[in-house]
């Protein structure tokens, strides 16, 4: 077997471990992003400027600055303010905060896609604003935005490669480590790309499956 082929095959378990780390980092960031995005998305729609202003500033700022810079600020910048985050939490928080801004816009559109009559019907029955949101508006909104959320999660999976710069050994960094010992850049990077593709393709299929399952008859 030629050396260029032998390297990615032999180091496959190591790359796979990196891929698992990628999935861990991504899924925790997705959860954080969903949580932030749901509340900020609702905040954007609030009539009270105490909620809508900060939500708008957050969304605009995060979307208008590079994720790489955001990662640097949280991992290298915060310590100079006395806040030392270990690399894993730092990476997840940076990705989650970033994703939250995009999710917020998706959630906002999702809520706006539900007719106002739904909210009024809920309120007319005596449900509070939060109950109406929780039981009537958000469940319908999330069904509508599932494809968009799926895209966002896939994008986040790929973006998670950026946390390799703060020495989290996820898939990309695992590949770089292999290459630094073997100098087989093409075949190893190609294997890395393939593994990303397997992950994102599986995710897009899963989203489609969930979409079908949750579809309202």
């Amino acid at each position, binding site marked *: 077997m030629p050396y260029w082929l032998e390297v990615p095959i032999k180091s496959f378990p190591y790359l796979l471990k990196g891929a698992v780390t990628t999935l861990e980092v991504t899924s925790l960031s997705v959860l954080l992003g969903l949580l932030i995005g749901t509340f900020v998305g609702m905040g954007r729609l609030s009539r009270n400027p105490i909620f809508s202003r900060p939500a708008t500033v957050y969304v605009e700022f995060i979307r208008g600055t590079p994720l790489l810079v955001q990662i640097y600020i949280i991992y290298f910048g915060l310590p100079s303010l006395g806040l030392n985050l270990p690399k894993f939490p730092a990476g997840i928080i940076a990705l989650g905060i970033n994703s939250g801004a995009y999710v917020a816009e998706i959630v906002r559109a999702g809520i706006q896609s539900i*007719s106002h*009559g*739904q909210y*009024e*019907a*809920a*309120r*007319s*029955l*005596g*449900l*509070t604003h939060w*109950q109406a949101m929780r*039981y*009537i508006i958000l*469940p*319908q909104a999330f*069904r509508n935005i599932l494809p968009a959320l799926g895209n966002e999660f896939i994008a986040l999976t790929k973006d998670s490669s950026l946390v390799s710069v703060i020495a989290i050994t996820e898939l990309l960094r695992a590949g770089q480590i292999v290459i630094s010992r073997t100098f087989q850049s093409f075949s190893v990077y190609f294997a890395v790309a393939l593994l990303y593709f397997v992950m994102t393709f599986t995710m897009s299929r899963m989203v489609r499956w969930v979409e079908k399952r949750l579809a*309202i*008859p």
Partner: protein
Amino acid sequence: MSEILRVENLWKSFGKLTVLKGVNLTLNRGEVLVIVGPSGGGKSTFLRCINHLEKPDRGRIMFDGQEVDESKVNINQIRSKIGMVFQQFNLFPHLKVVENLTLAPIKVKGLEESEAMEKARRLLEKVGLIDKIDSYPSQLSGGQQQRVAIARALMMDPDLMLFDEPTSALDPELVGEVLDTMKSLARDGMTMIVVTHEMGFAKEVADRIAFMEDGNFVEEGPPKEFFKNPKNPRTREFLSRILNV
């Protein structure tokens, strides 16, 4: 007869457009009031002010001895006593018929699920839709959806039911079943305010008919008089237009 609703000098504007101009109304328990009038005259807005879906600019609404005002009372508690049926039904499409009915009683009134289920069955029986209990709203016809919406409102044991053009979005052949459900409700003694263009229903069921135009009641009275001898020229014009089709 005891008074259940009193509206005093109610005003409401949307931007520069003044929709309600000092409306007054009293309604007794068990009464059926039908409001008619040209579109844009403020009928729907008036109805929506009663349970504060629209916040009035000025005036007072007393419901069952309590002032309907978000800053003074628990508005959710009052709303749960005022059922509302919408032109567009507004059933919750992601919930089954039975869940549409049981959600609010469980979440707002704290009913046990088994209690709520039993009640839902009883009411679906009453509106003739017990076989649709596990269907989703989109699987029902418009008329069936509106009957479910009525049952959903009744789940809260309301003291007053508001109907906002409940048959206007229906195909003509489906109007009858909804009106029948409303008639039987009226016969059971429910207090109702109905905004509608169904004059047959008004004649048959209403205790009082009120004609609203340009933000205020122009004329009101028992249906016989209202249709036979309308006093106000505006009312006469309106009636001649819709009755001589």
